[in-house]
């Protein structure tokens, strides 16, 4: 029973990583945190119902995502990738410290948006929390939605084209700037959802809440294969399971070390990730 219970906890944690990993940039963890704070403020101060607060959080994060893209990344579109990486770190610290200024440092307890109790199975031997079920369900819905969107929609196709080859996409008449903005908008809206789910399961909200999940989600994206939606999902869930199992059967202290060791091994053995496509070097 402990095994199954660990497995469920792992899948639930991994689903959160997966949602974050679907559309990722380095400041993503902090967009998650902002999303959670917005939802928190909406429910506690303004008395808005939880579900509506998620929608508001998504809207705020969408705007935030577009702003970040426009202010911090767009001017660096032609710069080296190292410059972009450093900007991302800057944005991340900027968001964290803004949250510190606005909401203060004291931890806040996030009320779960899932209004159900845990489910007990096998005479109480196996307990599944309502948050786990909702998290996994939301993750699956988002993944299916996103796959359909990128497969069929015009914008989705443009998105894929831009991610594959920006210059060629531009030559084909795709507006790369607006496509990238859209990617950020969707990614940030999903980040808001992830933030609310994360804080529903682990209800302590501080300005650094999103940092670790952000890094883990990045690991998940690399693990599954960057740019692949099923890859991000698989990577996220596997990572969640590895983390919980590592804690349970190896060591509670080393679980993070194990997670990142996995990242290193994957990068060494299969640099493109589990479901990543091998891209031939262009000549």
């Amino acid at each position, binding site marked *: 029973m*402990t095994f199954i219970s660990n497995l469920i906890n792992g899948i639930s*944690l991994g689903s959160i990583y997966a949602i974050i990993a679907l559309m990722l940039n380095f400041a993503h963890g902090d967009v998650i945190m902002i999303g959670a704070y917005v939802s928190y403020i909406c429910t506690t101060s303004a008395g808005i119902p939880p579900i509506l607060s998620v929608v508001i959080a998504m809207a705020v994060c969408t705007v935030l995502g577009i702003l970040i893209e426009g202010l911090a990344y767009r001017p660096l579109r032609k710069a080296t990738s190292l410059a972009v990486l450093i900007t991302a770190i800057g944005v991340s610290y900027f968001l964290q410290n803004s949250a510190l200024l606005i909401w203060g*440092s004291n*931890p*806040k307890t996030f*009320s779960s948006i899932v209004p159900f109790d845990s489910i007990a199975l096998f005479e109480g031997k196996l307990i599944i929390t309502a948050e786990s079920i909702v998290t996994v369900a939301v993750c699956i819905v988002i993944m299916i939605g996103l796959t359909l969107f990128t497969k069929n929609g015009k914008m989705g196709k443009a998105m894929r084209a831009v991610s594959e080859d920006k210059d060629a996409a531009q030559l084909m008449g795709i507006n790369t700037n607006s496509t990238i903005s859209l990617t950020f908008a969707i990614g940030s809206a999903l980040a808001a959802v992830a933030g609310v789910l994360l804080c529903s399961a*682990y209800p302590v909200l501080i300005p650094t809440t999103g940092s670790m999940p952000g890094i883990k989600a990045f690991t998940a994206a690399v693990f599954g294969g960057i740019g692949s939606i099923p890859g991000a999902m698989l990577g996220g869930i596997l990572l969640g399971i590895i983390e919980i199992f590592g804690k349970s059967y190896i060591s*509670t*202290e080393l679980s993070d070390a194990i997670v990142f060791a996995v990242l290193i091994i994957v990068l060494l053995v299969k640099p493109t990730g589990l479901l990543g496509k091998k891209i031939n070097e262009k000549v």
Partner: protein
Amino acid sequence: MKKFVRIMSVLTAACLILTALAGCGSKDGSSAKIKIGCIGPITGGAAIYGNAVKNAAEIAVEEINAKGEDIQFEFKFEDDEHDAEKSVNAYNTLKDWGMQILMGTVTTNPCIAVSSETNADNIFELTPSASSTDVIGGQPDKDGNVTIQRKSNVFQMCFTDPNQGTASADYIKEKNLGAKIAVIYNNGDAYSTGIYQKFDARAKELGLEIVSVTTFPSDDNTDFTVQLNDAKNKGADLLFLPIYYTPASLILKQAKDMQYSPKVFGVDGMDGILTVENFDTSLAEGVMLLTPFTADAKDEKTQNFVSKYKEKYGDTPNQFAADAYDCIYAIYEACKAAGVTADMSKEDICEKLTAQFTSSDFTFDGLTGEGMTWSDSGEVSKSPKGMVINNGAYAGM
């Protein structure tokens, strides 16, 4: 690109202005005042403690200065975010300011670092709440070796960790609180580990059965399902949590989700859990903890302090606030008795106060105990009280 540069420079300027404003804390540097510095976390995960200490110390300093006696204090607080490196930086800032006495630091890990600095610089230090014996030094470890020499200038207002660990085990045994005990502690933190080790040793002496011991690596940890599953599967009916309130609040929530409801026993780090914003206090119902102070006490001194604190900060003071308030008054009384004046050097003050604190006729009555005395070891002698959370408030046990 130009627009971007312009926006960034406006933002940078705004940041600089904010930083400058934040620096305008101290008032006129009148030379007739004894300069007391204080360091603690007022941002970050342990911010409740630093804020409580800062607020209470300010009340005490105001009260003392309002007496209009010869002894006047000037108080300056620096933030360390519960980080040892930042704490030493804050200490250096205070030293540049001309600090003569250090009241702090608030949390254990930074205090271990800073107390070594004050020891080298000969600055008297009284910490309200850093409870590890590594703070004062001179205590043998479990093999009987003294790894950190006694820092003779450092004293504590709170119980030491061993004291808390031992007292917790005694209390659990005496009140027969649990037959099977599970412990979850933070083994990346000297405070938590220190209490656990002494608790474990004492529990063995008393014949208490510890069925599950699990750890987590830092206070950022959010998932405790594995640790709780272990405790639950081994049938623990009492959960001993020698940890801070932030992880404790997550443990309480996750235990409830798992439909696992053991009795919970905490130490002074648990204090503050009721003041976490939006915390569902029903989760903490029945949680027991050892603390030397309760805001509900009916004596005049406590009532006076609590009402002042509430009026000024809109919050009920916790044990850390009471310890800090006591610290300032203990320093005040020691200064008075030893004839310390503002024009003395920090070294002279340190010598006089150390002699005063350890002298056999120096006793101090404060909010957290009557007739407190300090030994050469730097530890305070006072007795802890068991408290239980009842209807969202502390009550005597």
